[in-house]
């Protein structure tokens, strides 16, 4: 039995309203009017050219990282190393662009993007390889590699790749020189930050869909994700498939890092991963772990984050409230996911609650 579309809409509205109601409590504590705050949060990103384009700017890396997450998840592995893969990708891409300043854009741009993809793939492939060959758990290795990547990039940025100007003026800030202009991703709309990276991400979403559902390699990877042992009996090289899945996943994260650099900053500096390695996972889940579903999910999660930021500025509450509301939305939406998959779940759950099961007396919020 499947939940009807209207039922699903109600559940989703219920989950988000539930999260916002809890958030409203915090807004009241902080002395803000929740109605004014939520108006800024929900209308802000939709009501102006600034809001719409900025939401898409945020959606671009979310989508790219999310596509990698979809590949990994569908192949049966969770990639929480996106943060490290992003910066390593951006590092390699930036180094490539700086090394070849005289190349025409038509060659330089694809080369830069490709090198970032490859570097991200290597950084993501390492945990895959460690898992397949040496049984090192990928959760452990990706967490460690995130920290290692951060230090490695700082080293490169203050050493070999530092902007010579920073040395000349004695400011010494760790960032690269501006990348050659022909490598930049041009703006889609002037006076906004929206750039062609968004279009690239959209095209790649289609490509990932074709790869996973229309090629035999993609089919084999999904088979491993769906039933690992069955796939093994079916003659699929499970270990190789996992390495490939992690490498592709890392490649997309690496690309996301470089697209941020080429589209927004035009140079590499610290902090560009900005938590996308984690929020990309959320975007992928909201998109039902489907490459095409991740497109609107990334846009809406981008709008939500931007809206929360705008709300925080509009009613002047502590910035920490933005993270809090994001966390609440994630918890409520993943928590209500089961109601969408199985409409009878709530009835059963409530039915059971009549019986005295002490472990279930939790007073947590029940998504409506």
């Amino acid at each position, binding site marked *: 039995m499947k939940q009807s579309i209207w039922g699903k809409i109600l559940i989703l509205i219920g989950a988000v309203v539930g999260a916002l109601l809890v958030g409203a409590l915090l807004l009241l504590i902080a002395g803000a009017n929740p109605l004014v705050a939520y108006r800024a949060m929900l209308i802000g990103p939709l009501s102006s050219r600034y809001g719409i384009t900025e939401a898409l700017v945020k959606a671009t890396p979310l989508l790219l990282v999310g596509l990698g997450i979809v590949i990994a998840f569908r192949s049966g592995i969770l990639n929480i190393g996106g943060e490290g893969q992003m910066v390593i990708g951006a590092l390699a891409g930036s180094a490539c662009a700086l090394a070849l300043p005289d190349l025409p854009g038509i060659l330089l741009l694809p080369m830069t993007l490709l090198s970032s993809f490859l570097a991200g793939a290597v950084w993501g492939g390492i945990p895959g390889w460690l898992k397949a060959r040496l049984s090192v758990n990928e959760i452990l290795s990706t967490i460690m590699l995130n920290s*290692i990547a951060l230090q490695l990039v700082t080293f490169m940025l203050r050493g070999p790749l530092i902007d010579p100007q920073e040395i000349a003026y004695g400011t010494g800030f760790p960032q690269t020189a501006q990348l050659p202009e022909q490598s930049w991703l041009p703006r889609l709309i002037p006076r906004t930050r929206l750039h062609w990276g968004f279009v690239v991400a959209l095209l790649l979403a289609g490509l990932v869909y074709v790869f996973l559902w229309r090629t035999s390699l993609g089919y084999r990877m999904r088979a491993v994700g769906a039933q690992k042992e069955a796939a093994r009996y079916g003659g699929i090289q499970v270990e190789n498939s996992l390495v490939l899945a992690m490498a592709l996943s890392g490649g997309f994260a690496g690309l996301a890092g470089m697209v941020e650099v080429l589209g927004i900053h035009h140079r590499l500096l610290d902090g560009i991963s900005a938590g996308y390695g984690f929020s990309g996972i959320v975007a992928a889940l909201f998109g039902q772990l489907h490459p095409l579903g991740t497109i609107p999910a990334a846009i809406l999660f981008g709008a939500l984050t931007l809206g929360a930021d705008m709300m925080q500025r509009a009613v002047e509450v502590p910035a920490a409230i933005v993270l809090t509301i994001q966390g609440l939305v994630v918890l409520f939406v*993943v928590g209500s996911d089961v109601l969408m998959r199985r409409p009878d779940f709530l009835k059963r759950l409530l039915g059971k609650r009549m019986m005295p099961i002490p472990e279930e007396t939790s007073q947590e919020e029940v998504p409506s």
Partner: protein
Amino acid sequence: MIDQLLQTHIIIGVLATGVRLSTPFLLAALGEMFTQRSGVFNLGVEGIMLMGAFSGFWVTLVTGTPMLGILAAIIVGALMGLLMAFVSVTMQAKQGISGIGLYMLGWGLAGFLFRITVGYVTSVEGFRPIAIPILSDIPILGTVLFNHNWMVYFSLLLVPISWVVLFKTTWGLKVRAVGVTPEAADTLGVSVRGIRYACVVIGSIMAGLAGAFLTLGHTNMYGDNLTAGRGFIAVALVYFGRWNPWGILAGSLFFSIVDALQLWVQVLGLDIPYEFAVMAPYVLTVVALAAVSGRIWEPAALGKPFDREA
């Protein structure tokens, strides 16, 4: 520089620093071990630690009694655990993602509450080191192990206790059964949900304590994002220790002593870029695990929601 490092007082300094650094990892990782043994993957340890760190600090600031701060961290940890358990066990959410939600919520909420309750940098009187009589007089070992505050001893004591609970009690047997074959455990009348709720809450309480250690037993203060990624390292160390308390002890000490060593090496003068020193514990942890690789057992039902009627 090598001969400098081999001086007794330096060795003592490195090891004592390492033991102190290992406590938050040990507390949080032992807790997460119970959570994962029961089949639940809680990636939100970092968020719980931050909430524990804040609540412990704030209650101590207001009351002047750090033990009340510990109590607050336990309660807050338990509440965060109930939330995680409700979303992940009852509502069968994808656990990696509910953990990320919990992490965001804990980080944001701790920062928010700190701003509206305190809102400036200040310190509290935390726990003082207690030298254990006789034992603390043993050369080297005395300073390394027996001259810390009670939370350090407590965390070390929890290692054998956890081992006994997990491997020598009926309850521990049930936990292990639920984490491997929940269907079979259910048939035998074990409450899968009950065990999982209990284990998630225990794990979260210990994560809360780990956070409170940072504010009350280590820095005596609270600041935004105080834990700086330690919750994730703790989760990683559960895999390093292969869901065994002794393995987790080994992992926590290994990571922390390497970290202490790199700090001391930097202090004594270092001629390589410092970033490579800072990344040493992360690199060596992966290398160490790879070096002793072999067939890995893991709780078969880890991360999989259980639904009797599904």
